[in-house]
């Protein structure tokens, strides 16, 4: 499977291609088996009704032509429902097949205690085993790199062919069985039991074989069940009540009325909606561990977002130099250039670029000794021959450094640093010996279009919180620029966990993104934990979703998918129930036409005959299911807006529309079939 096919599926207009059409059609028939149909009570009632009308027709209780027509339409109604589910499943099945190919027949080079190697089938690997993988080989099992680093092609799992870097001892040490090492040699400690690997679980998920109904689906199922039972009571009691005034009601007509009333539209599409929700997540390259996780995403109130990589591009660029009073601008520029010439970090390079850009021709002097950044000193720089020591670094580090050398800190520095920080930039202070020269401004660039996305989230009532290690001033500036609602500055990993707990104690549902092992507790605590595929095994285990593209901004997409899934269910339920009004007007007059002629006044659609009225209502009831399959798979159109607006729009489209549309459609069907079959 590659990216392009997955994008095809993700398109806004899901089309049925030939490959999935036939198997889905066959499956629709296979699903007529009792053990399957019973899982869907609404359709089970239709199926029983089909058998009943067939029996009644055989027994001569109805006109054969009419009886068989009704039986056929009912059967088709059930098949349409099955077909909807089969189509949804087939989309996952294609993906599963290609995943399965990746898993097949892997061999592993297992290391034993003495350091020797033995080639064994991957199925024999157990957690804790060490395996060696070299350039060009496939990784035999899920695990963590304990030695070395490698570039890996994960296309088999993610569909993304650009190689990724994985390295021992970092937050990007996790590897997935079935992916390919492109360069170097790594030793991997196996972490998954055979049959329970990431790939195995993914296959099971996309096939929907272990799909559990989500909580909202269960609740809605109960409501649909009780509506079905209610209409069963209505229909069963009707002949007794009607019998009092001499109305003889044919059993085929009663079944027709029952099937028209029970919520077959939503009943037929409900399983498909659930599967499609998972699939839509998958098309966005997000692997949700359960359907529930996707659904919960729709309920999220707070998003915790890491600044770096999510909100900003993460590579800070030098954007300005600020010389202190009494320091020549050129002098500062020269100093920073010298200090950064040998600096390999992106920041260092950007400083050189900015300094050179101002026409400074300068090469690295002979005998210069570059001092790299260390977490301990928190500064870097250069020691020049002749004892000149140039340093750049965080303000407090430089202040300490200068004071150690006996220098004096100008009062102006504080102001300059604060000015830079207020802009959301990072200030680096530059010193030459015991003198402070000035400040380098490093800016972190906020990703394009985020402000609008956050505004949309706000309209949906979702609050965004930015997590950053920056100082409060910088954090505040970036927060303002990106348009997040809140931020945590100078955050440590445990701050994330504390914030999640605090939000949850306030009754809010929290989603977060994480990749490192130290994110694992927070990912587990969050209601929706989206782990990056590039992250550690611990993080991936802790979260309830994995983003295969490792794009933290995906969290926003997940929220929308979750909401869309719930809206689709609610909208189609409303539509289904609203449809019943017109169906009553079609069938009730037909039901009593023979015995109670006055009832003709209720035939507001002026349907041609009782026969064509009943058939038209049934045909509408059946074909609305396949017509709505695309909607069920794609989800209803969702424009982020407040709950009240969403309700108003959906009530107008699916509520009012659900009442009006079938009046028009049933009338149209009646015109066509009465002309065709002269009913």
């Amino acid at each position, binding site marked *: 499977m590659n990216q392009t096919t997955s994008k095809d599926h993700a398109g806004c207009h899901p089309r049925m291609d030939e490959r999935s059409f036939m198997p889905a059609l066959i499956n629709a028939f296979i699903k007529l088996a009792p053990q399957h149909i019973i899982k869907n009570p609404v359709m089970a009632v239709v199926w029983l009704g089909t058998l009943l009308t067939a029996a009644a027709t055989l027994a001569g209780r109805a006109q054969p032509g009419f009886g068989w027509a009704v039986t056929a339409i009912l059967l088709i109604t059930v098949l349409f429902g099955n077909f909807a589910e089969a189509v949804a499943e087939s989309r996952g099945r294609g993906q599963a097949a290609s995943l399965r190919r990746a898993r097949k027949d892997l061999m592993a080079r297992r290391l034993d205690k003495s350091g020797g190697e033995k080639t064994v089938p991957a199925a024999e690997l157990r957690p804790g085993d060490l395996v060696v993988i070299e350039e060009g080989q496939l990784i035999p099992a899920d695990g963590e790199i304990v030695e070395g680093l490698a570039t890996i092609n994960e296309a088999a799992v993610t569909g993304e062919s650009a190689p990724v870097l994985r390295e021992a001892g970092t937050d990007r040490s996790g590897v997935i069985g079935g992916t390919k090492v492109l360069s170097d040699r790594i030793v991997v400690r196996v972490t998954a039991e055979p049959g329970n690997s990431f790939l195995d679980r993914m296959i099971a998920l996309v096939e929907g074989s272990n799909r559990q109904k989500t*909580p*909202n689906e*269960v*609740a*809605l199922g*109960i*409501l649909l*069940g*009780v*509506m079905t039972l*209610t*209409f069963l*009571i*209505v229909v*069963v*009691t*009707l002949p*007794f*009540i*009607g*019998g*009092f*005034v001499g*109305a003889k009601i044919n059993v085929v007509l009663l079944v027709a009325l029952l099937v028209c009333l029970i919520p077959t539209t939503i009943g037929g599409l409900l399983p498909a909606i659930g599967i499609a929700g998972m699939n839509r997540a998958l098309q966005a390259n997000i692997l949700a561990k359960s359907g529930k996780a996707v*659904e919960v995403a*729709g*309920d999220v*109130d707070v998003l915790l977002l890491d600044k770096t990589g999510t909100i900003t591009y993460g590579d800070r660029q030098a954007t300005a130099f600020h010389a202190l009073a009494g320091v020549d601008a050129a002098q500062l520029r020269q100093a920073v250039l010298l200090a950064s010439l040998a600096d390999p970090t992106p920041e260092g390079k950007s400083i050189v670029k900015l300094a050179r850009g101002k026409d400074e021709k300068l090469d690295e002097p002979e005998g210069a000794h570059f001092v790299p950044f260390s977490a301990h000193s928190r500064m870097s720089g250069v020691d020049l021959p002749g004892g000149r020591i140039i340093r750049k670094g965080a303000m407090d580090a430089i202040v300490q450094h200068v004071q150690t050398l006996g220098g004096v800190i100008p009062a102006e520095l504080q102001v300059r640093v604060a000015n830079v920080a207020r802009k959301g930039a990072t200030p680096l202070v530059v010193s030459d010996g015991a003198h402070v020269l000035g400040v380098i401004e490093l800016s972190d660039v906020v990703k394009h279009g985020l402000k609008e996305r956050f505004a949309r989230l706000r309209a*949906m*009532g*979702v609050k965004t919180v930015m997590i950053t290690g920056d100082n409060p001033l910088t954090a505040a500036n970036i927060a303002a620029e990106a348009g997040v609602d809140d931020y945590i500055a100078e955050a440590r990993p445990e701050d994330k966990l504390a914030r999640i707990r605090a939000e949850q104690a*306030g*009754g*809010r549902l929290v989603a977060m993104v994480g990749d490192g092992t130290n994110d694992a507790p927070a990912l587990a605590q969050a209601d929706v934990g989206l782990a990056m595929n590039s992250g550690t095994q611990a993080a991936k285990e802790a979260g309830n979703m994995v983003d295969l593209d490792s794009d933290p901004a995906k969290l926003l997409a997940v929220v929308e998918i979750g*909401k869309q899934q*719930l*809206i689709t*269910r*609610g*909208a189609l*339920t*409303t539509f289904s*129930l609203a449809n*019943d*009004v017109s169906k*009553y007007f079609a069938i*009730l007059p037909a039901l*009593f036409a023979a015995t*109670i002629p*006055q*009832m003709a006044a*209720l035939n507001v659609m002026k349907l041609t005959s009782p026969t064509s009225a009943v058939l038209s209502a049934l045909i509408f009831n059946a074909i609305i299911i396949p017509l709505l399959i695309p909607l069920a798979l794609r989800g209803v159109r*969702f424009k982020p807006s*407040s*709950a009240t607006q*969403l*309700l108003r729009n959906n*009530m107008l489209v*699916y*509520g009012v529309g659900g009442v009006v549309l079938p009046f028009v459609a049933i009338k149209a069907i009646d015109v066509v079939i009465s002309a065709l079959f002269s009913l």
Partner: protein
Amino acid sequence: MTEFLLVFALAIGLGWPLGRYLAAVMRGEPMRGDGLFLRLERPLYALLGTDPQRGMSWRGYAGAFLLSNGVLGVIVWLILMTQAWLPLNPNGAPNMSWDLALHTMVSFLTNTNQQHYAGQAQLSYLAHMMGIVSLQIITPMMGLALVVATLRALFGGRNAQARKADGQDQTPVDVGNYWADVIRPTLRLMLPLCLLWSVLLTSQGVPATLDGGPVLAPVDATVQMKEQKIPLGPVSPMVSIKQLGTNGGGWYGANSAVPLENPTPLSNLLETLALILIPVAVVFMIAGLTGRRRFAALVLGTMLVMSVASAGLAIWSEGFSSTSQDIALMEGKEVRFGAAPSALWAALTTQTSNGSVNAMHDSLAPLTGLVTISDMLINAIWGGIGCGLQQFIVYLLLGVFLAGLMTGRTPELFGRKIEAPEVKLLAVLVLLQPLILLGLTAITLSVPSLTGNSNPGFHAISQVFYEYASAFANNGSGFEGLGDATVWWNLTCSFVLAAGRYPALIIPLAIAAMLARKRQAPESTGSLQIETPTFALTLIAVIVILTLLQFMPVLVLGPVADHLSLIAR
């Protein structure tokens, strides 16, 4: 039209201060009048052995409710079956048969007042006062207590703050003290208001005496009666309570259509107003009780729209529709009041689950019958005191569930999620109504010997269905002419009465208590705002369509077919 506007204006105008007062009573905090009322209440609490401040869990509360009903029920049943031997029986009413006594007892215990007997002839003064009137006073307050407890639970219970502080799960949700919730409003609201209405009605000529009635010669010689006994008694107190307490059971068999119960236009206005006064006040009470005025406004707005629509429809049908001039419909009508006040009363008495009448509903135009039956099937347009709001909460939960999904979140009411366990309980209530009403209607109609109807055809379907719908809604009015004093009718109606009362009062309380135990999410723009016109309209659509879908066939075979054949004639 004048009366229509006057009744609604007075109900809203008086309901507002009354609702505020009622909220203060139900909050149980120190208030004016304590000096007098506490002196009356304390001995009652001592007698019951309860501390009015001590809270109850929902189970304890529901248990106390059922216990109090059981004890009262047995006492009243015994009084009815032995009244001939007890004092205060100047008119010589005989003992009731066991089944009629059972039906009468259940009927009054459930605040229904469906009567399969004629009060003036078949009840002694003692049975009236001890059995009937005391139940008429206390049962509406029981309904009120249950809905107040449910509202408390919906907002986390009385101990919401304390439970939040100590991590929620351990302590049960405090929904209030049942005994205090019944006794306080009985003494502080119901009895004073009844006293006022009795005096006002007596001033209009409604009898209030313990003497037996006089025997007089009829003025009209054509009836060929030498003398007629005029039944009197303590009528006006009973009329007050039957109107104010959504009771409906009158002193006389023909209820407020009898001049002795409803002598003047002013008495008619007072009685019409009394139909909806306390139900409206209960809606206003929400604001003071929960501190959430916008919620009270939602309930008031939704109910008012449906109430005005239903009353308007009834008035149109009686006065202006194509059948309104049909002479056949004048049979059984009280001509003193005319079409509009009769239709207004008919609509309000079915909306509020009251059931008293000032015109025979059997004789209403078929479409007015459709309106009155629909009112009872919905049973939440004002509704019975407490029960109406309780039923409204059921619709609210259903509406929130559907609308919540459509806004893309797990449905939540006041920040608490409605999930499968709650939906299961709601499902029981949704199913119970069609199961009982349609099931029993079908059985009764298919065995003609059970029916006992006075009309053939479509109208008979209306009669039978009306009787059960009225019993299930705890309304109590009837399509008169039904021979309903039989064992079949007494027993099935007793069952329907209880099935329409107890689950409908207790299940919402249980759901609210389950919700109260859940984590409460703060409301944001992303959560469904129920206090908006959009949701109110959605809710009305849910209520109307749900009712319509379940009962359309029987309504078509009954009142609609009746109407169609009437205009076809």
